[in-house]
């Protein structure tokens, strides 16, 4: 799975993107656990960050697999 980080989350993780191997489909909570295990600094941002799967916001019942591109979307501030 390709994972993208934006804005201050690039500082939190030290990278703009990463490849993470899931092996099987994961639900939202399991994916967050995997992300936080890899980047512990993400834990305190979880409540304010939305997940996007293949350029669409992922609902609470989404599942994720290795073919997906997932972006962590912190609060936006465009315009």
């Amino acid at each position, binding site marked *: 799975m390709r994972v993208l980080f934006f804005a201050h989350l690039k500082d939190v993780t030290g990278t703009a993107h990463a490849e993470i191997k899931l092996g099987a489909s994961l639900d939202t909570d399991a994916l967050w656990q995997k992300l936080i295990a890899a980047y512990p600094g993400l834990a305190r941002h979880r409540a304010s960050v939305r997940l*996007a799967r293949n350029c669409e916001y992922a609902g609470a019942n989404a599942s994720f697999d290795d073919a997906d591109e997932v972006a962590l979307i912190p609060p936006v501030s465009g315009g």
Partner: protein
Amino acid sequence: MRLQIELTTQPIDLRRELPRELADAAGAVVEFQGVVRAEEDGHAVAALEYEAYSPMAERVMRRIAEEVCRRHPCLFVRVTHRIGVVPVGEAAIHVVAAARHRTEAFAMVTEFMNRLKRDVPIWKTRAFGRHELAASKPQ
């Protein structure tokens, strides 16, 4: 409805004309510029830097515009968002809505901007002071 959605790293051309075929049909053209102010969060700034998740930003902006236009029919909408470093006084976003009557065009611009600020993955990532901005420019 014709819809144009663009992200650009260049200064936004604010004088682009509407498509010629709209000239006779549109009774209202409403335009919004979101301009970088000299103050951000209480600090003097010379520029702001914008970052986008470009493919998703374009997709979400298109969807928002289409949804809003179903409620407030417009003939034409153009949204241009600048990314990268935007100096004070220059537009970070330019929205143009043309409709038969003003009510739809005003509603389109207002609702689009409200939703953009909630859902479009674009971020102000850095504020530059005057000296930082000068130092960041190529000699």
